[in-house]
């Protein structure tokens, strides 16, 4: 098994190779504005570091968000295109689940909350009973509007770091999304025969589109 994983739903552009047992190589660069420029070079770097060829990859793992859309789409279209050329399955995973898995690797076990930055003073969030056990659907809300018990839990992710007043029990790790953790989660799910999400974005918001008000007259009325 050789999994190529990447995620572009957060400010991190992260890619990793995983052989089913362990992470062979990982590259994580934090640059929220250059996902499109950094992703393929990152994939190339991890393949080079692991001494493997793209043709050896048996499955592509991709974070499907939620996350700011422009960057998110880079990962998804890249994953779908790789899947098409290589003829291998593309496994979608919730980006928050990758962070939760990384939190488990960092030693967080019981219930916790994952929150990422959704901009516009909102966070993407979900509640977990443990690293592999999400118990709510991913959602987008103002931090103050999250249920009190969710906010009181240990919290990881940039959303928690950004709104310390709403997340008193913040944990520093993981600071960023890690494709290595995402790949490890995928390997775990494959071994357990669990399903994946289709490689389609979790947008959670409708597109910003105001229907223009009726035609505006140029003559004074």
């Amino acid at each position, binding site marked *: 098994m050789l999994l190529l994983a990447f995620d572009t739903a957060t400010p991190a552009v992260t890619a990793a190779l995983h052989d089913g047992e362990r992470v062979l190589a990982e590259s994580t660069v934090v640059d929220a504005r*250059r996902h*499109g*420029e*950094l*992703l*393929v*070079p990152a*994939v*190339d770097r991890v*393949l*080079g570091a692991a001494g493997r*060829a*793209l*043709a050896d990859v048996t499955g592509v793992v991709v974070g499907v968000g939620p996350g700011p*859309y*422009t960057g998110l*789409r*880079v990962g*998804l*279209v*890249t994953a*779908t*295109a*790789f899947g*098409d*050329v*290589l003829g291998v399955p593309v496994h979608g995973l919730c980006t928050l689940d990758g962070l939760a898995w990384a939190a488990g690797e960092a030693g967080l076990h019981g219930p916790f909350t994952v929150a990422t930055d959704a901009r516009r003073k909102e966070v993407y969030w979900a509640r977990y009973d443990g690293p592999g056990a999400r118990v709510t659907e991913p959602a987008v809300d103002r931090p103050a509007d999250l249920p009190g018990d969710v906010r009181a839990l240990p919290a990881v992710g940039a959303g928690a770091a950004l709104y310390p007043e709403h997340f008193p029990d913040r944990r520093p790790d993981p600071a960023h999304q890690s494709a290595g953790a995402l790949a490890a989660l995928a390997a775990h799910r494959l071994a357990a025969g669990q399903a994946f999400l289709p490689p*389609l*974005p979790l*947008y959670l918001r409708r*597109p*910003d*589109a*105001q*229907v*223009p008000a009726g*035609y505006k*007259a*140029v*003559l004074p009325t």
Partner: protein
Amino acid sequence: MADEPLVLGIETSCDETGVGIVRGHTLLADAVASSVDEHARYGGVVPEVASRAHLEAMVPTIQRALKQAGVAASDLDGIAVTAGPGLAGALLVGVAAAKAYAYALGKPLYGVNHLASHICVDQLEHGALPEPTMALLVSGGHSSLLLAPDITSDVRPLGSTIDDAAGEAFDKVARVLGLGFPGGPAIDRYARDGDPAAIAFPRGLTGGRDPLYDFSFSGLKTAVARWVEARRRDGQDVPVADVAASFQEAVVDVLTRKALRACRDNGVDHLMIGGGVAANSRLRALAMERCENAGVRLRVPRPGLCTDNGAMVAALGAEMVARGRAASTFDLPADSSLPVTEVSVPGHTHGGTHTHTHEVSEGNLYG
């Protein structure tokens, strides 16, 4: 001619997901998925709606184009993509897709300019472009007069609109007349039954001291709106066909007059017209008439190749390959305001140390 370059082109600068495949000057496939219907109710292209549609359509449209062309992706000599100008989020989907295919297939990637592609597409219709080529590009996003001594490396802007694009004026006037979006085809249709001389609408920037090759359509649009509103305010019917015909005549009169002036001043005996507005029947007819009178040969691709499409990007990509132009590196950015003078976006060099992306990629899949 099997040794001509086989190139796949991807275009996502606006609301069409276009994928074309060409071999040299021969069009093999032109697959388009359009989100125009989703934008119609907004009265204009909504960037986020366009980006979402591109993501959904991208890979299926590539697969459809390969099937249409009857070629395998592994046979391609290169992948070309619109790197700009256009809507940033929309461009990014196409650029990311092009990179993924080029990287996975071990093929060179060519990030090219949308405007130069609009010109180059005519090679699929009328063979090699004359050098230099004079081109009038008119669409909802651009109105430019360009002189191209070499379509792969040297495109010079002579003039462009100082306010609205010509296609934008069509959309706005169509909205004034209640004809829906997009406005170009609707105005064209109504104008056929109208009198182009019924109303004397202004010709922008045609005075003796105005810039010779620049355009302005904002004043015209306002003049049409005022005329229509005045009629409505007086309780009179609006002669939609006459307004459409007179407005359209004002636009195409200025476009063709300035384009022919540019040909004459620069000693160019060919005129290429491209972009969505080049599908307008009156523009085509008047350009033909005036070119004949001036002894200029007119080259206008069929309407399907004038609007945004992937074949035009493939056509420029094939020309890049044929002329041995440098490929792009895999850190190619999408540039929403890419200047027309940058026909292609070759690789970044970081203080002499190239990224190793390209070298590594060659050995990735096919040895």
